């Protein structure tokens, strides 16, 4: 509220101070002028009185008649500010006196210097005026009057009263004027400030100040403020529109992409499924051909049919792998607590049973159970361990390690071997389907394993990455999001 009022309060205060100061100065000037003119007028009036009294007192002085002189002096009774008066003889003796009230006698009477006809003295509370009385060019006596200056005080009080009244009125006027200005100028500036505050708080750029009808600076201010708001509003809506459009487009694209992906998957499934029939037929009929007509083909023919059979089997395997990948992607997930270390141990046992001749040291740490689909996770872990088993086959002593560690507040599992490793520059290609970093002669493989692993982990809300170098072994890290959920595909 204080901030709100500050401009108008300041304008009001300014008005009050200016008008008050101007009035004070004017009053002081008038008062000083009045003082001077009043004193002059008083001296003139008293001088005239003293002259009349003087000339009327000549005979009284000459014929030593103080009663007559006092009679003359008593004419001063009609002058209320004359407190006392008197006539002195030529040798300064009191001849006749007049006092308005008892005790008004003049105490310290000044004297005229020689040759001086008339003189006056202003004292604190009164004015003393003295004049020589002459007859035939000779001074026969003196007349003096003492006038109270209380009238000046009365006038001063009256002035002060008038000044106070005028001051009050003009201050009221100033108050009214600043009220009017507050409505006109300050009010609109305050309104502008309020509006600016509201706009920045509500972020509502459609607000507008009422249009100004005049062309003052405040009007210009209001207009520019509105124009600015207009501009901001336009840009804001354009931005919002672009944002909305983008969102819409992204949703549309996502939808298109999803349906294309589904079609593609359905297509590849049906293709793989439908391809199985002819391949099975090829395989079966070539077997029949070799059994029944093997002898008539000759040794070259038999070998060719053997090649056909091998290729057909290989094709059958590929189709199975593709179907598996497709199933991994589309099958429904059943979440439950899975102990990955127990799973790794059983896979390791299976690998040793199949190839008891190899010397491989497994070290499998006990890990926290995770939430996931046990069938899919087994496929993923089997792929990783089988890879490690496979790529250590050229090494005399193989070490395969499974464990977990904490990194950036999440649990990271890893499968580490000391096998053939890979070129780290090509690490990105590891998880692409059918991408192989090693020759088929060196290591058997269909190039689909790691792609499958990545899909499974992705469905568990996790991710996978690898570190390694040629002949330095490889480490595969993966995460499984806690309470993982199947992402829509």
């Amino acid at each position: 509220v204080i901030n709100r009022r500050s401009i108008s309060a300041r304008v009001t205060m300014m008005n009050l101070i200016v008008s008050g100061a101007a009035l004070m100065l004017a009053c002081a000037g008038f008062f000083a002028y009045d003082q001077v003119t009043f004193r002059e007028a008083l001296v003139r009036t008293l001088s005239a009185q003293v002259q009349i009294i003087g000339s009327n007192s000549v005979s009284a002085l000459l014929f030593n008649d103080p009663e007559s002189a006092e009679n003359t002096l008593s004419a001063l009774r009609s002058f209320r500010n004359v407190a006392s008066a008197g006539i002195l003889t030529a040798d300064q003796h009191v001849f006749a006196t007049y006092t308005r009230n008892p005790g008004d006698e003049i105490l310290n009477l000044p004297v005229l210097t020689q040759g001086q006809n008339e003189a006056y003295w202003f004292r604190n509370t009164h004015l003393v005026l003295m004049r020589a009385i002459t007859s035939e060019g000779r001074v026969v006596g003196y007349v003096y009057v003492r006038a109270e200056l209380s009238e000046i005080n009365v006038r001063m009080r009256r002035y002060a009263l008038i000044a106070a009244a005028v001051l009050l009125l003009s201050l009221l006027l100033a108050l009214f004027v600043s009220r009017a200005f507050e409505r006109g100028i300050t009010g609109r500036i305050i309104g502008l400030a309020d509006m600016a505050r509201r706009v920045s708080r509500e972020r509502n750029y459609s607000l507008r100040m009422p249009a100004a009808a005049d062309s003052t600076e405040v009007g210009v201010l209001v207009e520019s403020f509105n124009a600015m708001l207009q501009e901001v509003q336009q840009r804001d809506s354009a931005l919002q529109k672009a944002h909305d459009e983008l969102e819409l487009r992204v949703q549309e694209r996502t939808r298109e992409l999803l349906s294309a992906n589904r079609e593609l998957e359905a297509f590849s499934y049906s293709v793989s499924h439908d391809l199985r029939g002819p391949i099975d037929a090829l395989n079966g009929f070539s077997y029949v051909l070799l059994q029944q007509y093997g002898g008539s083909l000759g040794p070259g023919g038999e070998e060719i049919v053997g090649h056909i059979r091998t290729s057909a089997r290989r094709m059958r395997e590929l189709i199975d792998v593709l179907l598996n990948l497709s199933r991994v992607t589309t099958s429904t997930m059943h979440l439950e607590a899975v102990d990955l270390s127990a799973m790794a141990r059983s896979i390791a046992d299976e690998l040793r049973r199949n190839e008891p001749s190899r010397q491989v040291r497994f070290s499998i740490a006990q890990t926290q159970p995770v939430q996931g689909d046990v069938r899919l996770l087994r496929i993923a872990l089997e792929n990783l361990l089988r890879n490690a088993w496979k790529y250590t086959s050229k090494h005399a002593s193989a070490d395969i390690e499974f464990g977990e560690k904490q990194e950036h507040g999440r649990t990271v599992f890893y499968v580490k071997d000391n096998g053939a490793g890979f070129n780290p520059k090509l690490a990105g290609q590891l998880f692409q389907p059918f991408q192989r970093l090693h020759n088929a002669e060196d290591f058997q493989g269909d190039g689909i394993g790691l792609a499958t692993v990545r899909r499974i982990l992705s469905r568990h809300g996790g991710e996978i990455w690898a570190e390694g170098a040629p002949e330095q072994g490889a480490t595969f890290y993966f995460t499984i999001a806690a309470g993982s959920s199947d992402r829509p595909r």
Partner: protein
Amino acid sequence: VDEVKAHLNTAFSSVKRWRRLNTAFFYPLFILAMCDLPASAQSPRPTEFQVKAAYLYNFGKFVRWPESVSAGPVFTMCVFGDDPFGGALQQVTDGQKVNGLSVELRQVTAVDEIKGCRVLFINGEEPGWRSGIATAKKLAVLTVGDAPDFLERGGMIQFVLVANRVRFEVNLDAAREAGLQLSAELLKVAAKVVAQNPPGGQR
């Protein structure tokens, strides 16, 4: 006076000092002014005839004579009979002027010498003073005397003693008949003004 000036000059330099001086300097003056000191303390108290001499001289200032008389180059004041002033009149009028004319004194012993006088003091102890009044009236001369029946005899101004103070009474009719105008200022300070006729036509 110079001392006063000097004091005043220094006094203006400081209001405080002015106030102090005000009391210190003017108070004694006031005492001096207000105390009606016996005349003997300063100068010997004027005698009755010294006062009368001064009055006699001052009367001239408040009287207007007809044109025919006022034409003279000097202001002649005369004493009829023996001079009772004993040199006081000489003292008072020495070097003085009345209406711009220098004063001249003259002793008058016979009525035919009155012509040319402006003011005539008539000594009541002179045997022929009554005829002097009549002659002076015809010649428009202001007559002043101290005989107790001076006004009744047609004199214009008569000295009297009131409470041991010299004062005077005026016979306005006599003055008017002689064509003299006595100023109101003079009548104002007179102890008594005798006037049978209404005071119309005079100043």
